[in-house]
């Protein structure tokens, strides 16, 4: 018997706890905004947030005081500029200090793979590329290849307490389909102790080709039906990325008061994601 779809608020209150390490993955595409906003509404604290590209969703969670630690590989607003709330946390410790663990994209993708494989670390070739490895507490270490003696970079495994993904479809048996840019979503899910998903639609049978990215139902702790759940990111085949919103965020997030007011009105002040989409005029 597949687990029934549960309301997102129940999924978050049951599976995301203060102090958890949490990866909301999805590389530009399928970013689980609705789930992030529900975490903000439930006022989780002390989270260790993990994401390759923190994007607007972690800018919002950091600015709202959910996180004390961030593991990431590129923290900007793509094509626009800074994540101002992330910057203010790092530069001025507002609303609280944020400890950083920083990787390159290739390293962090490998860290998820190691976690998904039950390894303590995974390796890649080492070159004198970056000062990241010269930091007092470097995120990666060096070791020689036992076969060739060539120098390797060892990247520690990442095993989030919770990975949350957004996806296009769930079928009657609870299997979940991701279509389009997949990023490191599958690796992040398989590395996690618990996997939560939000989905655009429920169907009888997935529209999945033979080699499609499908997460079988038995890997998933909880699934919630949240149409538009990736907005202002996007769900391929359902709706496009709202590039206008990504540009507008630059101005909203630049200022503490404007940010707090936006979050109060569009996240704390609404019961759920659908209500937010209606206020924004995105959904009728």
């Amino acid at each position: 018997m597949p687990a029934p779809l549960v309301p997102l608020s129940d999924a978050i209150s049951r599976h995301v706890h203060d102090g958890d390490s949490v990866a909301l993955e999805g590389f530009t595409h399928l970013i689980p905004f609705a789930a992030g906003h529900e975490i903000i509404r439930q006022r989780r604290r002390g989270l260790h947030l993990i994401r390759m590209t923190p994007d607007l969703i972690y800018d919002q969670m950091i600015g709202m005081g959910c996180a004390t630690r961030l593991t990431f590989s590129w923290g900007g607003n793509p094509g626009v500029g800074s994540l101002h709330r992330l910057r203010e946390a790092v530069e001025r410790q507002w609303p609280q200090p944020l400890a950083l663990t920083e990787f390159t994209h290739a390293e962090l993708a490998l860290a998820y793979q190691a976690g998904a494989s039950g390894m303590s670390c995974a390796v890649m070739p080492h070159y004198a590329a970056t000062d990241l490895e010269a930091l007092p507490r470097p995120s990666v270490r060096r070791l020689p290849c036992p076969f060739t003696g060539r120098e390797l970079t060892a990247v520690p495994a990442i095993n989030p307490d919770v990975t949350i993904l957004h996806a296009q479809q769930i079928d009657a048996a609870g299997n979940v389909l991701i279509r389009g840019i997949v990023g490191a979503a599958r690796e992040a899910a398989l590395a996690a102790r618990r996997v939560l998903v939000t989905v655009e639609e429920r169907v009888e049978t997935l529209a999945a080709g033979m080699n499609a990215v499908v997460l079988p139902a038995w890997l998933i702790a909880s699934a919630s039906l949240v149409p538009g759940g990736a907005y202002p990111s996007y769900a391929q085949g359902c709706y496009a990325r709202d590039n206008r919103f990504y540009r507008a965020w630059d101005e909203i997030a630049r200022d503490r008061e404007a940010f707090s007011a936006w979050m109060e009105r569009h996240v704390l002040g609404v019961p759920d994601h659908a209500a937010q989409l209606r206020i924004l005029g995105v959904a009728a």
Partner: protein
Amino acid sequence: MSVPAYTPDEIMTVTAARQLKDGAVCFVGIGLPSAACNLARLTHAPNLVLIYESGTVGVRPNVLPLSIGDGELAETATCIVPLPEIFAHYLQRGRVDVGFLGAAQIDRYGNLNSTVVGDYAHPAVRLPGGGGAPEIATYAREVLIIMKQSPRSFVPRLDFRTSCGYLGGSGERAASGAPGAGPRAVITDFGMLRPQPDSEELELAGLYPGITADAARQATGWPLKVAARLETLPPPEPQQLATLRELEARTRTAHARPIHIPL
């Protein structure tokens, strides 16, 4: 003085596009690199293979993406691969000819900083960080860099080395074993810098029409050397400008389109 019929961004984009040979495999960053690669593809290099780090391979977008992973890239890609695969099986394996990078700071050996201004632990400005750049800088057979030139960005000493150019120059990069050859050119809003073959120090190799070497020197935070042969770079051709402007107009329209989600 006559006003050029193009903007600094336009001549930078066209100059960068001209560096790309038809059939090359390019790892593309967002912004000017993306505009340059697509301009090349729409003009002299129809068989350019464009890879964006979102795992989209062989894309042929009709409009420029705002992010590295817009749906336009997925819809026009030959294939979409997971992130561990794009970095390991394509970039790290040596399948990329040209990597395109920008940064907040560059030094005279083409090393780049996109991590912090100031001290890492207490930065004056926290920049986005490395992303794909450190590995692109290491593995792409050659690297093109596009950056606006100013004493704040062309610095004597980086606050942080995010990605390697020629390290300390004079063969240090090659000795480190880095597979790629390093930066072949730095395209700026004044002209082009290229590494001197022995020292690998970047020197002024080309200027846009109407720009002086003195102006380029004043926009550089180290004493910029001038190459023995200083080239005058050609202005954009009308067809290149028309193609670029059409591409950007299509992009503006697409990005302004409101999103509607049926609930």
